[in-house]
């Protein structure tokens, strides 16, 4: 692997982690909201 490939590898892995983290955060917020709504129904 060339240094350029190595940089690209890190960049893609980092981006994937960030996107995955944001999705998990969004789902946590959504599940919290769903739970509150279903409990007050």
């Amino acid at each position, binding site marked *: 692997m060339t240094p350029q490939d190595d940089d690209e*590898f890190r960049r*893609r892995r980092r*981006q*994937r982690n960030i996107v995955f983290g944001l999705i998990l955060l969004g789902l946590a917020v*959504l599940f919290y*909201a*769903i739970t509150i*709504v*279903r409990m007050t129904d």
Partner: protein
Amino acid sequence: MNATTTTLALPTDWRDFLALTKPRVMSLVVFTGLCGLLAAPGHINPVLGFSAILCIALGAGGAAALNQWWEADIDAGMKRTAHRPLPAGRMRREDARDFGIALSAASVLVMGLAVHWLAAITLAVSIVYYAVVYTIWLKPRTPQNIVIGGGAGAFPPLIGWIAVTGEITAMPLLLFAIIFVWTPPHFWALALFVKTDYAKVGIPMMPVVAGERATRHQIMAYSLLLLGTALTPWWIGGTGAIYGMAALALSALFVALAVPVAIRTAEAGDAMKPEKRLFSYSVLYLFALFTALVIDRMLLA
């Protein structure tokens, strides 16, 4: 396929996973699903309504990923699809499959827990219908594949509607029928001007198998059927005159644009203008018809 089975040097870019969900198709799915939800009688908590639409979108995305997992070799042979993540070799084939299964399963589970299980089961049926019945089973086997595929695209407004009402009645089934009947003329108009690609990969598209003439006649037949189907919600009293008039005007124009497509024969090097015009209008038609439905039902309520 060499490109799809070898180990990748780099991890797949997250945008390629997004591309796998066919975001442009998903926007139509979200729109029609939302219209079904807004047009339905009764009330749904906004958080649950949002969850329902999100699940419909995730389910459609999962089904799209499974479709591309199965069709990677076919996609590689067509100019329109060769740049997709799998045929272009930017993603491992198993990753697309697992991503598709995960999205599908999550969407059904969340729909069941957040909304109700009738909506979840209908969503599951729609995903299996698209990924298995259509993609794997019938698409490569019959020139009626588009008619069958139209069934998959017809589910979102049905699911959106029953998410609110909790029961399957005539109106959501009619919304299903409208998209079901709309799909063949919509897609065959496209297939008439990109048919060389489908012939190359051996997918039995109507123009390839039954010939251009038969396809043009079928487009006409379905356009007339669409006129009748689109007006039915009004006839049975499910909507008011706003929808009725809009459906009449929009569908009449649809038929009017289908006539030149039906009666002409393409010459060599034909620009295919009437076909392209019908295809473009068909997309506008669906947006306008469902918008009219929502406006009508909201004023009626």
